[in-house]
């Protein structure tokens, strides 16, 4: 079992890196039907990303932009447009279930999403206005920051919030959810709301600028800063993305930065992969998959940085 598991991890990592190279070789021997090679390679790459995204606890969007931007021939403008749609489609698919189960909370999400979605418009406009190499450098640095965050950040399953701050109390940003693992109802409340609102404004900007989902930043802010339980943080983060990515997606759509031939294979591949990933949740060792994803992100982040600097084009 363990051997099969590591074989799966190894083959996934290998395929993620080899598929684009295989496609490149096919393009080199170009023929009249070569146009479909990259979309097919993109579909399978996204399928594999979807498989590892679920057990590792990161959104597919954060993997998509650096890997596809670094190793596929598409311009970063189109990659970011597709990345936003990948993150949006995933968040929209999960949203209804999370809301019904109380793991996404509207009272917690809406004030944060309002600021984040407004700033994501500014981020998207900025991202499409500045030169691609500057965006690549900023993307590389951001991805390397995410790697450090993923490798070092702790989680608090049930943070102890003694007293809500005045703003969260006024907005009644609190709730209760049924924790299936422990079989009990968990009451929660949050604090440090003003700082949380400020950070979500910045997170929305980055999400719009780089076309990534922002679960990597949302969850630590909700959980470690504001004190929401980890499951509520993850669920609410996913729900917030439905609003943040919708705003930014419109900017990319109106600017012509969404190509169906790039966006749709990505969305379909990622969602099919995520379904497999969800089924493998109980089989795969989440910590090992997470290490694999951190390794992939480290490689993709360095690639983006070096590409932006003109060192590895």
């Amino acid at each position: 079992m363990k051997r099969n598991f590591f074989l799966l991890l190894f083959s996934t990592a290998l395929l993620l890196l080899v598929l684009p190279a295989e496609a490149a070789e096919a393009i080199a021997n170009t023929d009249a039907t070569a146009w479909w090679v990259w979309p097919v390679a993109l579909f399978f790459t996204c399928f594999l990303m979807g498989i590892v995204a679920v057990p590792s606890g990161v959104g597919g969007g954060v993997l998509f932009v650096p890997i596809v931007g670094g190793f596929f021939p598409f311009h970063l403008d189109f990659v970011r447009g597709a990345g936003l749609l990948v993150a949006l489609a995933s968040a929209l698919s999960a949203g209804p279930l999370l809301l019904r189960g109380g793991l996404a909370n509207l009272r917690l999400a809406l004030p944060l999403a309002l600021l984040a979605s407004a700033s994501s418009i500014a981020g998207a406009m900025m991202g499409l206005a500045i030169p691609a190499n500057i965006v690549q450098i900023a993307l590389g640095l951001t991805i390397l920051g995410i790697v450090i965050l993923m490798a070092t950040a702790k989680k608090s399953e049930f943070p102890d919030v003694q007293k809500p701050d005045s703003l969260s109390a006024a907005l009644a940003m609190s709730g209760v959810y049924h924790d299936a693992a422990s079989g009990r109802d968990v009451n929660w409340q949050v604090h440090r709301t003003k700082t949380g609102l400020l950070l979500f404004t910045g997170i929305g900007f980055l999400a719009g600028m780089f076309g990534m989902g922002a679960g990597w930043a949302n969850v630590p802010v909700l959980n470690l800063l504001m004190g929401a339980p980890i499951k509520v943080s993850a669920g609410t983060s996913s729900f917030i993305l439905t609003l943040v990515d919708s705003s930014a997606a419109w900017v990319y759509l109106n600017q012509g930065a969404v190509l169906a031939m790039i966006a749709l294979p990505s969305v379909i591949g990622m969602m099919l992969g995520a379904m497999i990933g969800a089924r493998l949740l109980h089989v795969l060792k989440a910590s090992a998959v997470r290490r694999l994803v951190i390794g992939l992100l480290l490689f993709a982040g360095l690639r983006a940085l070096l590409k932006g600097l003109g060192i590895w084009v």
Partner: protein
Amino acid sequence: MSEHNSSQEQLRYSTILYWGSRSGLTISVIAFLAYVFGLLPAYVPVEQLPNLWHLPVKAYLAATHTPIGWNWLGLAGHGDFASLIGIAWLSSCSLLCLLAIIPIYNARRDRVFATICIVEIAVLLLAASGILTAHH
């Protein structure tokens, strides 16, 4: 805030989000398959895409004479733009969800959250309108 009231708006939101997202994805996939298999004509021939998708968006638009803003809707008879209808629908379905829960907040006299929903709708409409990007 009672838990019953809390779940009421969440349930309404989730129901609309469920149907909105599923229908958007279905439209996108059907239109995309029609595009790929040639059932709908392509505005930009698919054989030319490998020579174009490495260009920055502005250069791509100039090379293909593709319009920006909502003008793409006029090309919805082409497969590459028909696929965008589903994507536009996916990006819009949160609007309907927000609209649907405002009456619940109003009935509860929760003016703050009703206002947050209205402002969020305004933000989404502003992004969708293309006003910010049309002259960009």
